[in-house]
């Protein structure tokens, strides 16, 4: 079996791309067992999932809307991974970007949209970048594990959000009505990102796809991007080559955070038009900061691969929401299923790497054989 893959690189490549799908199917299989334990028919349930994701124009538009933040976060994750760091802080960076851009929108309610929208998105980008730069700085200059620091930065961002939305940034209407739902006022309708077709689909989706192409060009066609990848591949070799390793680590995490921040800003201006909280990060982000990691893995850590991967994952989430409504299972089923997908996709990566290694070994041994043959006798 393996020998077959090794001799047919194209089949092997297809297997690479197919693997995350198989892993997701396996996770859905476990989910089916869970559904049966709750007396829900998994066939009906997953039928509802497909229907919810692709069943109508609106469903497909919703899938694209869900895919948008996932794609942007995945781009950030790609940059971090290529730079040799892991960014678990997408949730917090997304929240920061959303908060900062909302603040811009609330501060200048009477300015025209063509000024405020680009400004707010840029501020969101910077805010997320700032939140990512902190763990980057701590990693580069104080050797603090970025996995741990980004998790802590998530918690700090969430608590900060809860505070801001309950007190300083709360909707004045909520204060008067004394219901005090922790959310801001709705942003001026002039700031809504334009709708693309008469659905919920907005300009943010197109922006995210453009961003994916730009990130690809940045990482593979510019000197700065090359340096980030060089540090990710081999930090000590990069150091000998004269690349400033710590600075590139900070840059990788800052850029990673910036795209998560942009995702947050686009969620506000394209979809929710305000900021709100349910006390946890998930209420606003829908775990996009974590799911973006899986999307990035799905897309083989390539910015362009992340485009179809985000669409598929968006479909999974929209469909799962439909499933939950139709089957009347609690919303937490989706969180658990989400966790299973993460675990299965990262675990499946094992076979990809194993196959890659076998193939390399084969190539090397073939080269050895041919070079021996060339030795003049």
């Amino acid at each position, binding site marked *: 079996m393996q020998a077959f893959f090794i001799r047919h690189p194209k089949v092997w490549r297809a297997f690479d791309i197919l693997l995350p799908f198989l892993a997701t199917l396996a996770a859905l299989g476990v989910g089916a067992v869970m559904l049966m334990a709750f007396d829900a028919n998994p066939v009906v349930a997953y039928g509802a999932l497909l229907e919810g994701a692709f069943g109508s124009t609106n469903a497909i538009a919703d899938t694209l809307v869900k895919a948008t933040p996932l794609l942007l976060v995945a781009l950030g994750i790609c940059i971090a991974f290529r730079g040799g760091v892991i960014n678990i802080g997408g949730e917090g960076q997304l929240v920061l970007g959303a908060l900062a851009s909302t603040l811009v929108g609330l501060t200048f309610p009477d300015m025209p949209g063509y000024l405020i929208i680009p400004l707010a998105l840029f501020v969101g980008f910077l805010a997320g970048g700032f939140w990512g730069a902190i763990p980057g700085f701590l990693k580069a200059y104080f050797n603090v594990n970025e996995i741990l620091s980004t998790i802590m930065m998530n918690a700090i961002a969430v608590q900060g959000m809860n505070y801001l939305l309950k007190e300083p940034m709360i909707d004045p209407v909520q204060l008067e009505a004394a219901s005090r739902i922790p959310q801001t006022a709705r942003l001026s309708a002039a700031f809504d990102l334009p709708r693309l077709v008469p659905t919920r689909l907005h300009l943010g989706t197109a922006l995210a796809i453009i961003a994916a192409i730009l990130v690809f060009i940045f990482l593979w066609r510019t000197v700065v991007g090359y340096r980030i990848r060089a540090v990710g591949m081999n930090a000590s070799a990069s150091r000998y080559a004269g690349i400033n390793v710590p600075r590139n680590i900070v840059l990788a995490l800052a850029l990673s955070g910036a795209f998560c921040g942009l995702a947050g800003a686009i969620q506000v201006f394209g979809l929710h038009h305000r900021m709100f909280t349910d006390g946890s990060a998930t209420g606003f982000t829908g775990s996009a900061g974590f799911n973006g990691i899986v999307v990035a893995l799905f897309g083989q850590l390539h910015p362009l691969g992340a485009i179809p991967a985000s669409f598929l994952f968006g479909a999974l989430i929209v469909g799962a929401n439909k499933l939950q409504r139709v089957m009347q299972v609690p919303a937490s089923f989706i*969180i658990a299923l989400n966790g*299973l997908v*993460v*675990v*299965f996709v990262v*675990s*499946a990566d094992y076979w990809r790497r194993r196959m890659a290694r076998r193939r390399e070994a084969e190539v090397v041994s073939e080269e050895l054989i041919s070079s021996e043959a060339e030795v003049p006798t």
Partner: protein
Amino acid sequence: MIAELFTTTVLVGILASGIRLATPYLYASLGETFGQKSGVLNLGVEGIMLLGAFAAFYATFVTENIWLGLLAAIIVGGIMGLAVAVINVTLKAEQGISGIGVFLFGLGMSELLFQKTLGTVETVSGFSSIYIPFLSDIPYIGEIFFQQNLLVYVAYIMVPVSWFVLGKTTLGLKIRAVGENPEAADTLGVSVNGVRYITQIFGGIMSGIAGASLSIALLNVFQQNLTSGLGFIAVALVYFGGWRPFGVLVGSLIFSMVNALQLWVQVLNIPIPADIAVMMPYVLTILALVIAVQRVRPPSALTKPYERGG
């Protein structure tokens, strides 16, 4: 207002709750110390704690027997530890990411089971306080240290036990060898993956007990996201403690004292917004990591799956 914090009653209260609240940190961090010493980072502690907390609570609620509750947490924790071992050791998954998956699974699953079985927040009578003869009568000291429940005492006993097992036994030597130099350990006939399976299952059990200590000993309730980030801090405490049980003890105490202080600040209605107060332990964790990481080096093979000849 702030002056209210400095009365004897409140100070004794803060110290007593500090000692008590260190319990979940201790179980989770000590278990995680074994795992990390053997070279595996389990970032899913939070999720396992939630499942353990639910299992303990539900079993206690149904059977009205706290021992069966504790047993349920141990079994669930052990199974989750085994799952983590399969994912991280056998399938060699990227440990920083797989742990997030385990966390999300635990978060969703514990809530799902809670919704399906109990539905509303209930309470149980959990482990009750044990007054240590004579010692508990000492003014202040007795109230702070010797009027706690069994799971609290056991957590503190686990500190020297962990130190002894890791530092003075053959098993501990194997764990450290596998985490520092798996190739050498393998050459000497130590089963690298076998040792890592043991530490992961043990870590899972300890996380399960950590959850149980919340749901059937300290708070005696179960609700959605009961642990609220405690498991992640526990992982950070292992770094802070320099992978040493007594270091973990110091870290756990600092954090639980800060938590106790924060709770009392809320109880006394001192006008610091609750959200900001809750934020403090996380800020402290980052600062603690900056200071701690300068002192000690992590186990060399941490987060690196072992591959023979690789």
